C-alpha cells in the first residue's frame, strides 16, 4: 500500500562534527573578508562579481572542493562543499566570478573533458581564476531549450559557429563559455543533434557580447553573437550528439543548490533587525512563518546534498525545492514592505535595509525565470508523479 508521497522523502541529514569545524572557519573568514563590501553588493551575493574575492576563496581551498586532486581539486565531499556554499550565500559574499565554474563547469569538464582540457582548465577553476559563462538560451529558445538553432559545423580545422545566445551572464568578462550548439541540423534529431563545446573566450574571434541592461540597471547578462566563430577541434566537450544528456546533468547541478532558496536571505536578516523593537504579535507571526519556511527549505536542501553525496540522482527532489524555494525568496521583498512600510531606495540613499530592499525587490522577478521556470519545474514534478 504505497503513497505517491513515498517517492518524495527528504530525510533529515546530520552533518558530522568536522563539517561544523569547517563552517566555523568559513564564517570567520567571511566576516573579515566582507567587512568593506557594500551592503547592496552583498545582497546580490551570487550575482555580484568580484575576481579578487574568488581568488581568495580559491586560495583557502574552498573552490572545486569535490574535484579530483590530480587536477588541482581537493577531493572533498559534496557536503563539505555544500557548507561553504550556503555560508557564502547567507553572508552575502560576492561569488559571481567563480559561481558557474565551481557549481557546474568544473564537474562537467572533469566528467566529460579530455585529459588536456582537464589539465588546462580545472586548476584555474579551483584557484578561483576562471570565470565561466553558460551558453544555453537563445532568442527563440528559452524554456524549450532543445529548439535551439545556433549551428556548429565541422571544418577542416575544427568547427565554425553561427548564431546567437542570450541571457548569458558574464559573457563580456568570462574566461570560458560552455555552450550547447546544433551539430546536426536534421529536424528529426531535435535532441540528438546537439553537442556541448568549451570555448576559450580570450582566444576566439567572431564572438561579440552585447550587454543587456536589466530593469534595475544591472549589466550582468548579454546577447552573444557568433559570426563564423572558429573553434579548434578539441573545443568539443564530451561526445558529439550527446549534448542534451550532458546538459541535463549540468542542469541538475544548476538546480539543486541552496541558492534556489537563499537569494533573499540577506534581506530577511536585515528585516529582522528593522522590525525588532516595534513588532506586533501579527508581524512576529508573519516573520516567524518565513523563519519556518527557511528552516523547512534548509532541511530539504541539505537532504538533496546528502543524496548527491551518496551518488544518487535527486533531480525530482531538486525540482521541488527549486519551485518551493523560489516562492519563498520571491515573496520576501513584498512581505518586507508590508511589515515595515519603509520605501525601497536606490543604492546610496536611505538606510541599509531600504537599499537592500530596493535592489532585491527589483531583481526578484528573475528568481522564477533563471535556471528553469516554476512552470518547467512543475512539469518535471508532474512527470515524476506519473501524470505526464
Amino acid at each position: 500500500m504505497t503513497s505517491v508521497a513515498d517517492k518524495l522523502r527528504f530525510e533529515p541529514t546530520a552533518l558530522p562534527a568536522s563539517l561544523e569545524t569547517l563552517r566555523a572557519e568559513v564564517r570567520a573568514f567571511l566576516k573579515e573578508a566582507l567587512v568593506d563590501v557594500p551592503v547592496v553588493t552583498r545582497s546580490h551575493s551570487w550575482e555580484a562579481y568580484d575576481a579578487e574575492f574568488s581568488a581568495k576563496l580559491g586560495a583557502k581551498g574552498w573552490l572545486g572542493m569535490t574535484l579530483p586532486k590530480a587536477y588541482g581539486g581537493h577531493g572533498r565531499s559534496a557536503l563539505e562543499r555544500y557548507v561553504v556554499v550556503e555560508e557564502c550565500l547567507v553572508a552575502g559574499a560576492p561569488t559571481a566570478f567563480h559561481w558557474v565554474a565551481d557549481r557546474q563547469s568544473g564537474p562537467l569538464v572533469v566528467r566529460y573533458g579530455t585529459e588536456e582540457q582537464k589539465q588546462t582548465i580545472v586548476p584555474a577553476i579551483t584557484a578561483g581564476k576562471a570565470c565561466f559563462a553558460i551558453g544555453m538560451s537563445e532568442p527563440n529558445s528559452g524554456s524549450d531549450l532543445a529548439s535551439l538553432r545556433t549551428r556548429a559545423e565541422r571544418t577542416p580545422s575544427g568547427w565554425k559557429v553561427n548564431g546567437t545566445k542570450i541571457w548569458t551572464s558574464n559573457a563580456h568578462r568570462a574566461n570560458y563559455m560552455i555552450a550547447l550548439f546544433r551539430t546536426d541540423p536534421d529536424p528529426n534529431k531535435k535532441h540528438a543533434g546537439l553537442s556541448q563545446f568549451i570555448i576559450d573566450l580570450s582566444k576566439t574571434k567572431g564572438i561579440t557580447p552585447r550587454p543587456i541592461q536589466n530593469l534595475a540597471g544591472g549589466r550582468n547578462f548579454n546577447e552573444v553573437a557568433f559570426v563564423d566563430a572558429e573553434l579548434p577541434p578539441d573545443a568539443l566537450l564530451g561526445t558529439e550528439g550527446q549534448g542534451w544528456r550532458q546538459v541535463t546533468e549540468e542542469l541538475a547541478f544548476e538546480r539543486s543548490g541552496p541558492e534556489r532558496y537563499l537569494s533573499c536571505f540577506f534581506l530577511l536578516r536585515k528585516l529582522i533587525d528593522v522590525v525588532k523593537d516595534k513588532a506586533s504579535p501579527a508581524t512576529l507571526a508573519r516573520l516567524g512563518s518565513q523563519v519556518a519556511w527557511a528552516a523547512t527549505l534548509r532541511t530539504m536542501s541539505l537532504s538533496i546534498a546528502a543524496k548527491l553525496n551518496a551518488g544518487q540522482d535527486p533531480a525530482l527532489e531538486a525540482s521541488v525545492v527549486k519551485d518551493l524555494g523560489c516562492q519563498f525568496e520571491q515573496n520576501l521583498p513584498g512581505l518586507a514592505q508590508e511589515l515595515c512600510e519603509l520605501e525601497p531606495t536606490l543604492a546610496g540613499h536611505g538606510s541599509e535595509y531600504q537599499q537592500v530592499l530596493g535592489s532585491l525587490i527589483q531583481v526578484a522577478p528573475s528568481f522564477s525565470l533563471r535556471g528553469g521556470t516554476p512552470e518547467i519545474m512543475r512539469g518535471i514534478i508532474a512527470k515524476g508523479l506519473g501524470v505526464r
Partner: protein
Amino acid sequence: MNEIQIMLEDTVNRLFGDRLGWDQLTAIEEQGFPTALWAETVEQGINKVLADENAGGMGVGWADAYPVLRACGRHAVPLPVAEAIIAEWLARQAGASLPDGVPGLLPGTIAASALGASTLKLDGTRTPWGRNADFLVGVADTGAGPELIIASSQGLHVAAEDNIGRDPRDTLSGNAAILGRHALPLPADCIHWLGALARSAQIAGAGAAALDLALKYGAERSQFGKPLSGFQAIQHYLADLAGVVASVDAICMAACVGLDTRGMAVEGRNARFEIAAAKCRASEAVEKLTRLSHQVHGAIGFTYEYGLHFLTRRLWAWRAEFGGAGEWGEYLGRVAVEVGGDGIWPTITA
C-alpha cells in the same frame, strides 16, 4: 526510512487500510467509538510504540514513531492513537505506568491551584475523546517542578462536542480522583508541544492521502476527451500539492529527530525551534492541501458520498488544534528578533 520505521508504517497501513474505508468511517461517525478497532490497535501495540519495553512498549524514539503518526493521518484514524502515543511517552519519561484503556490526554498545562490533596479540578478542559476516556493524563506545573498526573475519568461532567473532523473533543468539568503523581523531567508545557508535533505529522499523512486521491481521480476522470491530469493546469496543481506535502513531511521528520537528539527544554537551542516550524508550516499548508485536492476533484469531492472529506475536514480541524500558524509563527518571530538578523542563520543551522 530505517527498518523499524518501515515495519511500523506497514503495521499501521495494514491495520487501518482495510478497516477504515468509506463504510467504516461513516459508521463510526454515526455510531461512535469503534471499540473493536481500538482493541485491535492496542493488541498490535500501536498505542505503545513510545512506551518503555518493560511496560510492553517498543521503546523507540520520535523519529521511529513519526511514520505511525503520519499513517494515522493518512487513514483519517478516528481514534486517540496520537494522544495515546504521547501519554505513553510521558509515562516512560516519568517512570510511571498507565492504566489499561482509552487515555484522555489533557491539553495545556495543569495549574498548581487545580491540584487538591487527592483530586484534580477540571474547569472545562477540552479533551480529545473525553467521553470515551478510561483515565486522564496531564502535566501539572506544581511550583516544585512539573509532574505527570494520572487521574480517573469517573464522575465528571462531560459536555460532548465533535470537532469538524467529527472526532470527539469533549469539555470535562468536575473533580477527578488522582490515581498517580510522578515527577516529570520535561517542561510543564510539554503536552502542547508534543500535541503540535503529532498534529503536524497527521497533517503530513492526510495531505499525502488527499494527493493520492487527487492523482487517482485525475487519471480516471475524462473531460474534453482526455483525463483531467492531461491538462497542464491540473498537472501544476498536483505538482504544487506534492511539493507542499513533501515540505510538511520534511520539517516534521526534522522535528522528530530534533526531539530525540536535543530534547525540548525551555531554554537554549533545542527541538522547540523545529517543532514550532513544523506546526507553523503544517497549519499554513492545510489551506493549499485542501483547496487544491478539492479543486482537482470538482463537485464530486464536495459530496459526502465520495469521502475526500474524511481527510479534508480533519485537516481543517488539526490546523487549529494545539495552536495554528499564528501562534507558532509568533513564537518563531520572537526567536528571530531575540537572536537578531545575524543570529537567525546560526539558529537554523545549529
